[in-house]
């Protein structure tokens, strides 16, 4: 039901763009929310910030930079990189060493500027490995980056001096000097450092999309051969784009190191590279801001849902498959598909269809969560002597009733959803056909 509309949105993205004012409001709103959100969870009785919220928001900030830098390759240049975490992790490792050096005075650089150095390390790394990888494009490029990712992970475990082996390297951020006399002892100070760098990096990456290089990266994505007959070497375009994206991944990694004060090989290994792909794709690769939505959502799932459920990765995986199959434009594509309808004042006609399709979807989801949680509890939770709590009720996983309810919800909800989705699609197609007649 959804693929038709995002297909059109992917192609028609230029014409379906919201008005300038709306876009401006989105950016200002996003920054305001980022600045104010920690105070919403401030514990006034004890006079301190919620550590959980601040650390989750910090993670979101660095992941926003990371996902956006990934999309410089994926969405903008059509390059499927499988080693993006290598640049992130390398920036992180370098940052730990910078922090130590800044702490003992051998590196007289204030904390606020250090992420720039981490970015330059990411850039250097991307120059070396990007030179190899960007000789190729498409599948061969993906293969080479896969190899680079494995190579770097193994190297991180081998070379103890720099990478510290399995236990990683750690440092203390509080010894570094500050331009503004800020002590980075508390998470909230680091969080605002991250916000500042996220804003800077996002603006810089947005500006890059409007440069000759950024535009030719789009051109290489659409038709790498034609580029050559316009005077450009597509390999040089890929290389430069890769190097610049490595810079921003390095910045993100540097902020990671400041936040956690420890970096292990997890920071450059394949799962994090896969995460970059997930965030960019789920958020939407065809729109600049798409990966931001993806980074926020995935981090929420990672920090929030992982507290409630062992199986949170199952949900992320299913979400990814569903998005790739039904909404290749990602969340941003789904949102943009509504722009022309809103502009024509027809959004109201979608409310009832959305409720009709939303109810069975909720039932199906509840059934799915039930089945997954019951199964996961039987294999892990029970052995740990825990109680299964689902939707606020303690449940006996070995009795038949919860299983039956879950399966019925899943199957019946699914069938109902299938029917409802058809009706929704008809309504949607009707509205878009009307709009086409209007123009």
């Amino acid at each position, binding site marked *: 039901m959804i693929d038709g509309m995002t297909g059109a949105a*992917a192609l028609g993205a230029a014409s379906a763009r919201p008005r300038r004012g709306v876009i401006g409001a989105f950016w200002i709103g996003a920054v305001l929310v980022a600045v104010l959100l920690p105070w919403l969870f401030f514990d006034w009785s004890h006079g301190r910030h919620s550590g959980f919220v601040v650390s989750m928001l910090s993670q979101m900030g660095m992941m926003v930079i990371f996902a956006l830098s990934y999309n410089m390759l994926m969405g903008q240049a059509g390059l499927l990189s499988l080693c993006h975490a290598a640049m992130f992790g390398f920036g992180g490792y370098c940052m730990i060493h910078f922090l130590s050096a800044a702490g003992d005075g051998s590196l007289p650089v204030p904390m606020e500027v250090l992420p720039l150095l981490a970015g330059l390390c990411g850039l250097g790394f991307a120059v070396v490995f990007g030179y190899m990888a960007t000789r190729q494009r498409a599948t061969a490029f993906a293969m080479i980056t896969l190899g680079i990712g494995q190579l770097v992970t193994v190297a991180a475990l081998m070379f103890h001096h720099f990478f510290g082996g399995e236990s990683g390297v750690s440092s203390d951020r509080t010894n570094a000097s500050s331009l503004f006399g800020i002590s980075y002892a508390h998470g909230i100070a680091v969080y605002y450092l991250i916000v500042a760098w996220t804003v800077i990096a996002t603006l810089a990456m947005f500006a890059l999309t409007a440069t000759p290089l950024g535009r030719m990266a789009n051109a290489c994505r*659409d*038709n790498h051969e034609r580029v*050559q*007959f316009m*005077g*450009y*070497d597509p390999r*040089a375009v890929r290389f*430069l784009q890769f190097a610049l994206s490595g810079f921003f991944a390095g910045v993100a990694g540097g902020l990671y190191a400041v936040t956690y004060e420890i970096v292990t090989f997890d920071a450059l290994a394949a799962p994090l590279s896969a995460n970059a792909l997930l965030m960019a794709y789920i958020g939407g690769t065809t729109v600049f801001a798409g990966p931001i939505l993806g980074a926020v959502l995935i981090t929420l799932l990672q920090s929030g849902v992982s507290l409630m459920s062992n199986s949170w990765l199952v949900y992320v995986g299913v979400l990814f498959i569903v998005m790739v199959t039904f909404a290749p434009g990602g969340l941003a594509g789904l949102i943009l598909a509504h722009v022309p309808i809103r502009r024509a004042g027809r959004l109201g006609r979608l409310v009832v269809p959305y409720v009709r399709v939303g109810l069975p979807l909720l039932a199906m989801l509840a059934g799915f969560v039930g089945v997954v949680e019951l199964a996961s509890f039987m294999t892990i939770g029970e052995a740990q002597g825990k109680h299964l709590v689902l939707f606020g009720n303690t449940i006996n996983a070995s009795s038949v009733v919860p299983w039956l309810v879950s399966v019925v919800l899943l199957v019946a909800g699914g069938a109902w959803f299938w029917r409802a989705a058809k009706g929704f699609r008809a309504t949607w197609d009707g509205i878009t056909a009307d709009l086409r007649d209007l123009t």
Partner: protein
Amino acid sequence: MTEAPALALRDVRKNFGATEIIRGVTLDIAKGERHAIIGPNGAGKTTLFNLMSGRFPITSGEIALNGARIDGMPPQRINRLGLSRSFQITSIYHRLSVFENVRCSLLWSMGYRYSFWHMLPRQRALNQAAEHILEEINLAARRDTPAGLLSYAEQRALEIGITVAGGASVVLLDEPTAGMSHSETDYAMALIRRMTQGRTLVMVEHDMKVVFDLADTITVLVYGEVIASGPPATIRGNPAVQEAYLGQLAA
């Protein structure tokens, strides 16, 4: 001759595996000439274009552009020396808008190279040049439409537009009117005539009316060899050409 020809081919050969597709082509295309290459299907016309534009390397021989050797160079270097080409199968940037397509084709020739420090919306001369091309190819009304959503004839017009936009002195057009209706063909030919004024034009074309209307010189290619080359009147009267090519069509 005092001035070097725009394009000079000397005994150019091209093999694909054991098969020789281009079998010793020698050809001079004078500056400012409108040159048509005709020949039956499979004669190697498009292959010859691919060799001249650097898309494929030649097996042996020499190709010179304005007197400078270009064989062995990658396409982008040949393009920078002033040769631009279009494709028989429309080759545009489908997801970029019509305007962006045209602007991309201007970037290198206007000296932007791989810049990541110029903001495109602020480049007035560049944007005006792009708008001007859009008006020339009559696509100003479709400015912000993704190129992939244009009609076939519009895409062909865009293809011509982005080929000539960079100001190349030698323009190769591979069947620019293929698949067009009569009125579309007339329109496209007027467009080509206008936009290649003062430049060297080399064209592969099947439509004989177009060829004899437009070309100063016609080269007939059959099985990878030039069997005749000269002004339209001579070619029309050449018995070998009539037998090999025109005869079949005119019959």
